[in-house]
């Protein structure tokens, strides 16, 4: 019984972390309606940057967030201007392929620059888990989860109460109407892409203590991120959080009760299941998946 509780709780916490990783993606996907195949590599970049900062200065990764956010924001800006914007008005597969090319280039750049060695940071408090009744968790997991709640709440407030937030919601629902309403959509695209990348920066920092980083670490997570986004519905913050929790729980439980290798297959099956029966996700907009994107 307490095994189940343990699994559930760690699954939920892991889910929170997955949510942070995906929240930027759901924004980008929802607002720009593009698939960024290099999303995993943005995460990888963030993790390497965090590692570099921690190794060089000795501060914790959580403090490094302050530095990584602007760096990833800038990187996102650059990628948007050079690679995404030229492809926006063209058929969506232009952006798909372009970001794929970026993904390949980034993975191998990391390979060349950092070699395939795993890099990690020393655990907090010497690695002793926190004890909560009969449940144990790693400090980093708990911290990551708390941060993810904070970020999700902050974003939810931001989206509901600021002008940009409303602009985002409007553009997610109907880009053309938003433009007609006077929303500067091209500028919004730029901000969203860069901002989404900055969010990935945060994710990288909180994930580094839990997972080592190496050049292809992004591949492991990009598909999870997409499952979370699809599950939660494109463009929805709460959806990303809930989606993340679901995936976290599924992975935690199936990793234990079914063979760990099959565990990976499970969330792909969940993804396909959602795509077939509720393509708009749990909290997404009706018809979002059926509407021709970019046509």
């Amino acid at each position, binding site marked *: 019984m307490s095994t189940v509780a343990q699994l559930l709780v760690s699954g939920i916490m892991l889910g929170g972390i997955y949510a942070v990783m995906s929240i930027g993606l759901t924004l980008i996907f929802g607002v720009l309606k593009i698939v960024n195949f290099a999303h995993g590599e943005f995460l990888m970049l963030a993790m390497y940057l965090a590692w570099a900062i921690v190794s060089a200065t000795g501060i914790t990764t959580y403090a490094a967030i302050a530095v990584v956010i602007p760096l990833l924001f800038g990187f996102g800006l650059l990628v948007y201007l050079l690679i995404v914007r*030229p492809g926006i008005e063209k058929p969506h597969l232009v952006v798909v392929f372009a970001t*794929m090319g970026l993904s390949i*280039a980034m993975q191998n750049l990391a*390979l060349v620059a950092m070699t395939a060695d795993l890099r990690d940071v020393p655990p907090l408090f010497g690695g002793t888990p926190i004890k909560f009744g009969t449940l144990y968790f790693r400090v980093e997991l708990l911290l990551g989860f708390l941060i993810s709640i904070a970020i999700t709440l902050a974003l939810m407030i931001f989206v509901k109460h600021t002008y940009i937030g409303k602009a985002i919601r409007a553009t997610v629902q109907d880009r053309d109407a938003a433009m007609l309403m006077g929303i500067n959509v091209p500028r919004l695209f730029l901000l969203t892409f860069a901002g989404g990348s900055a969010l990935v920066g945060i994710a990288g920092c909180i994930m580094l203590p839990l997972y080592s980083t190496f050049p292809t670490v992004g591949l492991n997570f990009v598909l999870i991120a997409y499952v979370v986004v699809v599950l939660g519905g494109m463009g929805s913050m709460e959806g990303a959080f809930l989606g993340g929790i679901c995936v976290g729980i599924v992975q935690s439980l199936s990793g234990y009760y079914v063979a760990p*290798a*099959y565990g990976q*297959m499970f969330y792909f099956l969940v993804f396909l299941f959602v795509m077939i029966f509720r*393509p708009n996700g749990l909290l997404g907009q009706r018809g979002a*998946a059926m509407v021709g*994107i970019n046509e």
Partner: protein
Amino acid sequence: MVEGRIPAVVGIQAISFSAAPRRGAVSIVEIAILAACIIATVVVSNRYAVDIMIRTFLWAGLALAWNIAGGYAGLISFGHAAFFGIGAYTSTILLLNYGVPPWFGMLAGALIAGCGGALLARVCARLRGPFFILSTLAAGEVVRIAALNWRTLTGGSEGLEIAPVPSVVNMVFKSQWPYATIIVAYMLAMFALSVWIEQTRYGYYLFATRDDEDGASAIGINPSHTRAAAMAVSAATAAIGGTLFAQYFLYLDPTHVISPDISFQFALICAVGGLGTASGPVFGALIIVPLSELLRGFLSQSTSGLHLVIYGIIVIIVILYFPSGVSGAISRVASRFSLAAGFSARVQARKM
């Protein structure tokens, strides 16, 4: 010049020829390149060079297979490696466990993959754009993980090996030449299939479904039917390529055969060469495969991976600035030089 006129097209019975690459006609440029491939197969004897040629032609054939779904029908699949793998594994398992010659095993693999393709199309019938792409990716991964874990059937991560005992029945050869011939034949067959599709009613139905589903429906085309058929054919032909792959390399394992990297490769070759044209995948393969080899050779061991960085950058540049790929670029250049003028005095209505 009438606005929008295409280079001169001359119809000869059932096949239509033209000066520059265009949909629905075989151009001089294409014929020249294919002829060069055939001649190269016969003439070149350097082991290393022939190996590159074999791989290039195989990738070209596979990319042509992908193109049927991705280019003609607009169904961009990033899980196609699964069909490729199904073909490779089916014929190999039948060979190793039951002694079935790969010539037949190939057909079995194609059949299974074809059904899989139709199933995938049905399952993803209502999905469009990025959602469809991601679903195919997920489906491909499901197949890969299944193959990885179903040890008894597929040998898991240890993979399957075919004994290098030469035998025509078992499609194992000592020299490269028979392999080269078979694979070039595969590429030519796929090219012919693509051209045939472009010129028949079925091809037009594919283009219509791809462009505007409602409009297609209004003129009597059943879009889900058309999609499923395209996916099935694409999957089946990719599976055949899978068998050829298995017979040449004599070793299969899920991580290398059913990987997203391979699926991406199919798509990238088509994108670089020209999506939705018969010659696009051929051009794409001719550029990308030797290029990767060249880059890998040039750059020393210590900077392993650098060639892929360059490869990634090339992809970005090509797709952003040459969206209709090499094939499109050649078309534009050829029509600029008005090859039309030399080819025929007047624009003729196609005799088709």
